Each structure stands twice: as C-alpha cells, then as structure tokens.
C-alpha cells in the first residue's frame, strides 16, 4: 500500500514537472516600451501568434528594454525585446545579444537590405519588423505646418521658447544626425549639424523626457513644434486631435527601423525563433500599422486605406524619402556624441 502511494506521488510529481517544463519551453517573454507599445504588440502580434502556435507570449512593458537586457546580463528573464537599431548595435558590441543566420528567416528577403542590422561577421542582429520616422511635430494652432519645411527653420530666433527637444541620449543619435544631413553632412560629418542643434536647443522652452510629457506640451500648446516620432503624432490624430501635424522637412526625415532582438543565452530557442519568424511576416506588421502607426518594413505588407490616408503618400515613397544612417557608426560613437550634445545644450542660448 505504502509502495503504491509512493509511486502515485512520484507519478504526480513527474507529471507536474513535465507540465512545468512544457509550459516553460513554450513561452516567449518580450520586453517593450510602455506608452501603448505593449498593448499594440499584444493585439497585433502576440494574440494571433499564440492562437496559431499555442505558444504563450508575455509582453512586459518596461521603461527601457535595453536597461533590462543589461541588468539581466548573466541571467536573462526575457527571450525577446524590441529595440532601436543604434541600441541593438551597442548591445551587440557589448556581447549582450544573440546573432542569427539570415536564412533562418525567409520573410526577411522582402525587407530591403539597408534596414537589416548585421554584425561585422555578417550575421543578423535581430529581426527588423517595422519603422517610424523622426520628423517635426507641429501644433497648427500656433504655427502653420508650412513654417517647418526645413530642419533649419527650427533654428530661427522667432521660435525662441516655442520649441521642445529631447534629451542628449536621443538627440545625439537622432537630432544630431538629421540636422547634419540638413546642413549637407551626415552621421559622420556633424560639425554644422551640431551648430544647428545648438540653435534649436537655444530656442527650446523645455527638454522632454517622456512621450507623455511631449504629448502634453504639444496638445496643450505650450510649444509650437518639436523634432518627434511619427507614431506619436499618428496616435494623437487617431485619438481625434486635429491641431497636430507631422512634417517631413524637405531634407527628409530620419528613418527609425525597430527590430526584435534576443538577449544572449536566452531560454527556449525554439519558441523565440518561431516568434522572430512571425514578426517578420507582413500580416502582423499590417495590424500594428493600423493600431499604432508603426509602418511595415516587409515589402509584401499592404496598408489599409485609413493608414494610407494618414501617411498621405505611398508607403514606398515615404520610406524612400527617409534618411537611413549607419546605426553601427552611431552606436560606436555613442558616448562621444552624447558628450558633444550635452556641452552644446549647456552653451545653447548663451550670447
């Protein structure tokens, strides 16, 4: 009798362990930014993927996915994370990310080569999924959108105390690059761009530190314009705001591709490989375009009529008008660029 009881307990424990192992093996835990990004990922990708594969996807919203990957360096809790290209390049250089054979992701053949982030060894650092762009957001109650047809217009003294700008960590990667392009340079040739950035910072009333803060500044009309993300303006318009416009200046806006990366030594390779393949497909990318304005990188994806109306021009035309810098170069020089921008902003506005 006692023997039977022991065997029963053994079987129960083994079954529980097996169940746990199966559950554990069939899970993707992905870090995303907050501010609606997580919700959009759940609806556009996670829920349909789980239905299709029975693999549970847990989307965890965090302030900075990169910070999570760095903090969990030795024992990653996430096996996927959304990242910008320059952050991914930096993390890869620091040995924090897995790399992949591009042939593992057949859908990526429909993504233009320049939007894929590759390591020096030619392997892929994550899967490029969608893009936003960095242009000029304008409150049209305070200024006509046509006033910001060039990045240089932001440096005009007439906008003194009527602009906002992001913090050096991002402006050193985004604003400095696109303003250098506007001044005839590029991400490597930044001297003139830095001068323009200094003028823009001199005109800035506030430095925004979160999307919520910038949305408030723009919606309330505390500032007339700011270099900002297309997706945020998209979401404000979708929510019914009619006095906010996104401008692509004549020198172009900055292309911001995003990719899904995998922390080094992350668990459950089989599940995250399926997940990476899924996010490279056009269907999910079409859904997130409708939900949050992140635009597809996969050429096979078709925008809905409503989405097409909001961007105002064919997707490929828009994509081709955006400037795609060498993000690896920006990542390599990240600290030096931040220092330059910090110093420039400290001097900004001084006579």
């Amino acid at each position, binding site marked *: 009798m006692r023997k039977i009881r022991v065997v029963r307990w053994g079987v129960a424990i083994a079954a529980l362990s097996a169940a746990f192992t199966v559950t554990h093996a069939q899970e993707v835990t992905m870090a995303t930014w907050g501010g609606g990004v997580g919700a959009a990922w759940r609806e556009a990708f996670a829920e349909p993927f789980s239905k299709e594969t029975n693999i549970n996807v847990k989307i965890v919203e965090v*302030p*900075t996915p*990169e*910070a999570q990957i*760095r903090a969990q360096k030795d024992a990653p809790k996430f096996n996927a994370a959304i990242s910008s290209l320059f952050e991914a390049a930096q993390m890869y250089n620091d040995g924090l990310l897995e790399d992949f054979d591009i042939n593992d992701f057949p859908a990526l053949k429909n993504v233009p080569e320049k939007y894929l982030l590759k390591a020096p060894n030619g392997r892929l650092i994550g899967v490029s999924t969608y893009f936003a762009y960095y242009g000029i957001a304008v409150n049209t109650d305070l200024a006509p959108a046509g006033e910001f047809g060039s990045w240089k217009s932001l440096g005009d003294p007439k906008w003194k*105390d009527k602009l906002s*700008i992001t*913090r*050096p*960590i991002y402006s050193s990667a985004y604003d400095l690059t696109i303003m250098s392009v506007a001044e005839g340079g590029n991400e490597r040739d930044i001297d003139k761009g830095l001068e323009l950035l200094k003028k823009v*910072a001199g005109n*800035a*009333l*506030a*430095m925004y*530190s979160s999307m919520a*803060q910038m949305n*408030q500044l723009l919606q*309330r*009309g*505390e500032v007339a314009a700011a270099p900002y993300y297309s997706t945020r303006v998209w979401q404000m318009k979708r929510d019914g705001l009619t006095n906010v416009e996104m401008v692509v200046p004549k020198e172009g806006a900055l292309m911001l591709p995003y990719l899904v990366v995998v922390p080094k030594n992350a668990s459950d390779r089989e599940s995250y490989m399926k997940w990476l393949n899924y996010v490279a497909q056009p269907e999910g990318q079409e859904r997130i375009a409708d939900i949050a304005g992140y635009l597809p990188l996969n050429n096979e994806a078709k925008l809905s009529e409503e989405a097409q109306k909001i961007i105002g021009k064919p997707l490929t035309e828009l994509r081709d008008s955006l400037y795609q810098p060498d993000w690896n170069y920006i990542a390599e020089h*990240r*600290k030096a660029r*931040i220092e330059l921008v*910090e*110093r420039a*902003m*400290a*001097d*900004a*506005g001084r006579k």
Partner: protein
Amino acid sequence: MTRTAKPSFALLAGAAILIAAFLTGIAYLVIESLHTGSGWGLDNFAYFFSRSDYVAVLNRTILVSVLATLFAALIGYPIAYAIADYKGNRNFLMMLVIMPWLVSVVVRTYGWVVILGPRGTLNSMLLSWGVIDTPLRLIFNMTGVVIGLVHVFCPFFIISVLSVLLHQDKSLREASQTLSAGPIRTFFNITLPLSLSGVITGAILVYLLSTGAIVTPLLLGGVRDGMLATQIYQDVLQVFDYPKAASMAIVLLLTAFVLVIPLQWLERRVAARVSGRGE
C-alpha cells in the same frame, strides 16, 4: 535584567543593519567610481571636474536645493506654527499637510504645468485681465524647479518643526508675556530659539531630498536647468556608464556632507543650549 537587555539589543541590531546597508552601498559606489576603462584610478572624478557643464550642474544643484530649503522654511514654519497654536481639530490640519503625499509626485508636478505653464491657468488669467502682454515664464526654468521642490518637500519641514513646537512648554511663552514682552518679542526670544532643532532637522531633510530630486527638475526644468541627480539617472538608465554615475553620486554625497555636517553640529549646540547643558 533580561527584560531591559532584549529590546536594547533588538534596537541595536536594527541600527546595525541600517548602518551596514548604508556602508555597503557607499563602499560599492566608491569601488564602482574608481573603475576606469583600463584599471583603477580617479579618472572619473577628474573627468567630472574637467567638464565645465557638469560643474555648472553641480553648482545649480546646490543653489536650487538651498533656495528650495529657504522657501520651504519661510512657507513651512508659519504653517507649523499655526497648526501648533490651533485650538480645534489639529489632526485634521496635519492630514491636510500630508495629503499631497497620497498623490504621485509625477501627477503633482504635472499640476504645476497646468497652473503655471505659458498656456496655464495663471498666465491665461493675467493675459485676459490685460495685466501682461506675453505669458510669464514661471516654469521650464530654475523658478519652476524651486516651486516644484518646495511643493513636494515642504511637508517634511512642517512636520519637523511641528513636532518640536507641540512639545514646547507653553508656560514659557506665558511667562514672557507676563514680563511685558509682546507677541513678536516672545516669538523671537522664546518660540523660535526653542524650535531651532526642528528647523535645522527640517532644513537638512529638504536640502538632502532636493539634491536627489529627479522627477521635478525633469518636468519643470528647462533645457539648461538639469540637476546632478537627473544626470546620474541618465547615466545609469540610459547611457549605462555606471562608473561615471557612481563618481557623480560620490560628488553629490560629499557636497551634501559639506552642508549637513555643520548643520548637525549646530543642531547639537542648539539642543544642548536649550536643555541647559551648553550654558
């Protein structure tokens, strides 16, 4: 004997844990701050002081914290005095003082944008009354940061002073007035000196909390109004330069000590004088 020994040991153990945690944290910071790219040294500190913009941030941090402390004292003391002197339901007034703590500091700080922003309530009113032609710049500068810090930290000052005022022997004030001193003379000769220990404790609290403030300078400061804690926050969570952030934290700590240690010495002298031990 056993009954008295146990609680004191328990108190000692609690204090020891706190001190050990504090010292471990400081030791970690010191070790981290001495990490350089190639080994150990003071490179991070040298770099900090070689950057004029960082030194300006440090000076601004001290100035803003001193101003916030000063205004918290000027606003907080009369409030504490009024509550201590109130004959009715004093607990209700104390609850009003601490009630803002029930709301997130982010929400409270955003409130100031709505009130003091260029398109805020105050500017809109002044513009509509014809008092001003262009909006006053009350936030997104140092003024805004000081207003925000005073609002957030003033309750700490009020509670520190209130706890001292409530324990003051009222007969001393009555004796002063019996000896023909008016209310103002009584206040400056009796009430204020006897409450100085509370004032100093409150000032230390507000000053230290202000030097470490992150949210308020971020939301109410302008492009050139960053404080050291916001810089540390950026270096830890966005640039991931931990040695640099640790060196800045050590600089901030040492700066705080420069002001706090003399204040604590003053507090001990005041306490000794009030109790008669210093005479």
